[in-house]
């Protein structure tokens, strides 16, 4: 994880406010070359990504609201804020509540260009919101409800309030082999690989720049 560089411009009060409690107001990312080295994106891809990123967040910091807005534009019919929050948290903003470009890019580098194991690892982190290393039934229900929320009302068959719960429980029970109420990473991977061509499915979300 890159260290946060000194805020550009206001050297005076900016330096004084460098502790982690105060919200940073501006962030300049590390150089393009080092980021290209650290992640699996090429220079052109990084340039493309940063241009769009900087347009939306001129200060260089992404807040939760920005994520929600992005998702709500891709899923305009439903309420994508819950899922957006989960994704935001999965990038691990730490105590600050906002993400920097490096964090986002490093996360995306794993998701887009990583191996299936790395992708599953990220998915596991997505599900495991309290970071205890296990997925509980509550966390599963939370995630599945977030997915169902994105659908909105204009779907058929209609979404009943208990659908998400039932779906989550079904999946959870299938995953939890030993029945101890918590899904570990190994159980998670095993369950994902069973009955499906995992690699193909994970790859179908790749996007050509």
């Amino acid at each position, binding site marked *: 994880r890159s260290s946060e560089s000194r805020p550009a411009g206001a050297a005076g009060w900016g330096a004084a406010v460098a502790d982690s409690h105060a919200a940073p107001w501006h962030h300049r990312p590390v150089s393009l070359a080092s980021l290209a080295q650290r992640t699996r994106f090429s220079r*052109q891809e990084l340039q*493309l*990504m*940063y*241009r*769009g*990123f900087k*347009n*939306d967040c001129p200060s260089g910091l992404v807040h939760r609201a920005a994520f929600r*807005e*992005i*998702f709500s*534009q*891709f899923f*305009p*019919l439903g309420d994508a804020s819950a*899922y957006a929050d*989960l*994704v935001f948290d*999965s990038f691990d903003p730490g105590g600050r509540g906002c993400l920097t470009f490096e964090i*986002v890019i490093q996360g*995306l580098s794993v*998701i*887009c260009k990583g191996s299936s194991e790395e*992708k*599953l690892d*990220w*998915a596991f982190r*997505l*599900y495991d919101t309290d970071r205890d290393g296990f997925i509980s039934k509550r966390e*599963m229900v939370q*995630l*599945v409800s977030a*997915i169902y929320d994105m*659908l909105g009302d*204009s*779907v*058929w*068959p209609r979404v009943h309030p208990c659908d998400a719960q039932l*779906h*989550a429980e079904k*999946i959870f029970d299938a*995953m939890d082999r030993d029945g101890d109420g918590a899904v570990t990473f190994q159980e*998670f991977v095993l*369950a*994902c690989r069973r009955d*499906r*061509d*995992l690699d*193909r*499915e*994970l*790859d*179908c*979300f*790749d*996007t*050509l*720049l």
Partner: protein
Amino acid sequence: RAATVIGKRRLARSDCGPSVVLLGLVTRSPQRCRRPDTHIASRAAAIGWVPVAQGPMPPPPLRDEDHKSDEKLIISVSGRKFVTWRNTLEKFPDTLLGSDEKEYFYDEDSKQYFFDRDPDLFRHILAYYRTGRLHYPKNECIMAYDEELAFFGIMPDIMGDCCYEDYRDRKRENNERLFDDKDSDAENAMPHSTPREKLWRAFENPQSSTVALVVYYVTGFFIAVSVLANVFETIPCGVEPGTNLSPACGDRFSVAFFCLDTACVLIFTVEYLARLYAAPQRLKHLRAVMSVIDIVAILPYYIGLFMPDNKDLSGAFVTLRVFRVFRIFKFSRHSMGLRILGYTLKSCASELGFLLFSMTMAVIIFATVMYYAEKNQPKTGFVSIPAAFWYTIVTMTTLGYGDIVPSTIIGKIVGGVCSLSGVLVIALPVPVIVSNFSRIYHQNQRADKRKAQKKARLARIRMAKNASGAAFISSKKRAEERQRLQETEIGGAECGSIRGSGAGDDSGSSADRREDVFELQHHHLLTCLERTTEREFVELDQLTQLPVCSSQQQPQPASPAAGSDASIAGADAELSPGGPAGCFKGRWRRGSREARTYL
């Protein structure tokens, strides 16, 4: 305010049948769906669905092998170069720059898109693509800006909140101005109208004809006479012999005053009935304020006529005479300022309402306190709270008649506070009303000034058009000469007789190289029109030298008249459309062709 593009996509699910999801893309800010970084992020985040999916994911769409990653485009607007990414422009695919339409403007030689438009305004257009928000530059003309937006296919309604109010206000102001001008134009340009319409126009616009002006002044005079008579008939004039009384003039010369009143009411009745007859929408006219005032002004007289001479009712009759004072409101047709005042009061209704409400509140509070402070004093004027209202109002408006005064200490203190606060409460809404009045009054002044200047402006424009029209005709004659020269040269006939008529012209065919192809073809077209209709284009000042057309009617057979040629500038409005065989003054002359010889 949003443009919606609706498409349908079926997400196949193996266990629960097809679920149909309507995708609506609501564009209000930059389309993030079209940006590569957000696209990647949201698609990548969807990996989280895979473990819980109940069916397999569909395969991704095939990639276009020669899909270019972003490239820069050069847009040249009147020479000023703007460079941007292709993706930036394609954020809004329903505009000119975002769609294929811009290919029409692609210049192969310089490999850029060339637009022959205003480069200063193009900045704002491009800023819309870059930031997703459309702004309105305050120093630009609204019509020019609107035209640019229309050209580039951008709907002005998506303007950001920061500029939308301003834009709408300017647009409305502009529309009003144009509408005003067009209105008065339409009025003046109506050639034929029924007597009813003419009457209505005479009433509404006193300047339209002398009869209207006369009517205007006569009614004004009679309103003034009537009002003055009402005033004077109450003055005591002279002592009645034998008694000490001095009766009012109205009682002494009651017959004279009655005749005067009758005359005025007759005039007003005739005017009212005429307006009612001429009104285009009678019901609406009946409900209009001015006609209600008219009715109220003349009704007391008629009621008085038909009422029996009864002692009981004569009291009511006297009350009715009070309504005669409403005749003074009829002056508002004669005075613009009065109408503006009325309009201002109407538009400031909320401020006036606030004033009234706050005054009422203050009056009630102070009156109550004064009453309870003073009620036990001997010989006090504060006998009840409503009686104290009178004191409070007189004090708050700083009148201070002195018919009721407080005598206790508390009463005097409260009275002091009351008069101080009265000044404040009244002073608050007044500036709003004043500024409203000032704005409306100035607007009106400007409209009047514009109308006055319009005549002079139109006259100047007409003169300029005539000058250019004359130049056009002379150049057309030159072109004809040259044409004929060509024909005679080709045909080999004698050219002496032909040179006689027409304006002088440069010799040689090198001269017609100077006139470009468009002009030559235009002149040829006009010549064809002349031949078709057996007419000839002449200059405006030559028309006055032509004899009156009726004497010339016999030699030529009547041919159907063509409409006026729009390209001949100047006398368009003066051309009266005559019938097919009719004779009409104008630019047409049934020219005799004997002077020219043609092959």
